[in-house]
């Protein structure tokens, strides 16, 4: 029984996207694809413990889902004739060779820029990730009914506006792939630093899901440097998760983390990806530079801040945003001291951002400017949503 449960869980993770994607291509209907995939898995839950696991579970699920879809369409065509025609998905006519895969089509459709970001995230988790609507609703602290409406509305727009089920036009491809990575990174970040006080500080379910989906995209687009970079960034970040929150639920900063708790396997894999990108000789994008920074953080006994600063200088050329400048200033503080860093930080227009005030507070504390440091901690505490981060800031405030 337990064995079958394990198989079901594993097969669900491995095959869900494939089954949905296959049905979506065949029947050109995302709604039908999702529902019939769910029914096929429900049937498996009933039947496999009794009949045994079929020799090819993926094929069994696809066939079962297809049969159900055909039955459904027959019933409906008897009832309402042309209706199905109205919600058909359209495909893009020219497949792009190596990256033409049903699952990749599904990812691009779910992450289409004509959908709101929150819809892209929800659709990707549902259609590609196989999370249930209640699971997604819980992950983003939205009522189940509201999340169901969001997903239904997104599917409705895909059908009505004819968002294609397919890989993008060649000229759109780089921007669209960047858009997919943004969705995956957002899912990961929400897991890594949950923004709400109402959830666990670290949501390993979301980080794991984001990594799994990014692995899938990498498998489908292996030559893209930014896909590799994002995967490496996630792995090197995830590797530090066991050391990131103390037993008392407080955030532990990088320099104070117990490195023996880090996941060596993930670090090894992340470093290998970063080396692979360096060896390619191609100019790195944003995710690759961020991955390289995290590779430096996870290399040896302590961080080589000179390398980190050089990488932030490189990142700044790609993304000259205030948040990047803030993170660069943290590296400057390690090399040139808090006074120099504070001057850089104070010039940034980030008053609504908790990390800005937390960084200022730390620099002011190191400079012995106690009153100003306390005021900055207060502001950071006010803006921070993550419970572990709040706990850390409160203690630091008390000690200052």
């Amino acid at each position: 029984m337990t064995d079958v449960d394990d198989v079901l869980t594993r097969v669900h993770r491995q095959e869900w996207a494939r089954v949905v994607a296959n049905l979506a291509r065949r029947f050109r209907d995302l709604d039908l694809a999702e529902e019939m995939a769910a029914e096929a898995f429900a049937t498996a839950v009933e039947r496999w413990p009794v009949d045994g696991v079929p020799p090819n579970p993926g094929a069994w699920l696809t066939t079962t889902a297809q049969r159900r879809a055909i039955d459904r369409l027959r019933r409906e065509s008897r009832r309402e004739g042309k209706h199905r025609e109205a919600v058909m998905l359209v495909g893009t006519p020219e497949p792009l060779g190596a990256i033409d895969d049903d699952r990749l089509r599904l990812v691009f459709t779910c992450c289409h820029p004509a959908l709101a970001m929150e819809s892209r995230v929800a659709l990707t988790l549902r259609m590609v990730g196989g999370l249930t609507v209640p699971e997604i609703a819980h992950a983003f602290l939205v009522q189940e009914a509201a999340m169901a409406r969001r997903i239904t509305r997104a599917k409705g727009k895909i059908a009505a506006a004819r968002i294609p089920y397919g890989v993008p036009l060649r000229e759109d491809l780089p921007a669209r792939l960047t858009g997919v990575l943004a969705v995956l990174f957002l899912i990961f970040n929400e897991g890594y630093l949950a923004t709400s006080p109402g959830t666990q500080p670290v949501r390993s379910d979301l980080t794991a899901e984001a990594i799994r989906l990014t692995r899938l995209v990498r498998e489908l687009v292996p030559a893209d440097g930014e896909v590799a970079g994002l995967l490496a960034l996630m792995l090197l970040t995830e590797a530090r998760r066991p050391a990131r929150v103390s037993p008392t639920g407080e955030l532990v900063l990088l320099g104070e983390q117990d490195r023996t708790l880090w996941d060596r396997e993930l670090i090894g894999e992340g470093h290998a990806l970063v080396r692979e990108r360096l060896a390619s000789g191609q100019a790195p994008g944003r995710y690759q530079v961020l991955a390289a920074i995290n590779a430096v953080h996870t290399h040896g006994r302590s961080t080589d801040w000179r390398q980190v600063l050089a990488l932030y200088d490189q990142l700044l050329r790609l993304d000259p945003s205030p948040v990047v400048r803030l993170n660069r200033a943290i590296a400057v503080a390690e090399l040139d001291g808090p006074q120099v860093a504070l001057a850089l930080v104070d010039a940034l227009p980030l008053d609504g951002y908790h990390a800005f005030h937390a960084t200022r507070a730390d620099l002011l504390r190191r400079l012995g400017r106690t009153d100003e440091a306390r005021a900055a901690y207060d502001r950071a505490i006010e803006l921070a949503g993550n419970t572990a981060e709040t706990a850390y800031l409160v203690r630091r405030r008390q000690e200052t």
Partner: protein
Amino acid sequence: MVQYLVSVLSDSTELADDAEMAAIDVFNDQLRADGHWVFAGGLAGPDAATVIDGRGAEPLLTDGPYLESKEHVAGFWIIEAPHLDVALRLAAAGSKACNRRLELRPFLAG
């Protein structure tokens, strides 16, 4: 093929200037050449609008647009495209040509 309504959004009643008109002509020629053209036209300002409610015994007329808003539809295209990605590319080029924001909406499938 799907038809899309491409509405030109404007917050002023100023008509397109010569450079904009010339760019729109080039864009329209391209739409025709590539088989995307269905129809297009510019509209008089919202002051020229009349709202008609003919559901009663006598039609009821109201002077002005049905909604007072900062922005109004200054003109439109109806284009034909195989799917949204193509329509979005066309709309982006059209927006550049007329130098205004556009709204793209699919017609209901027949």
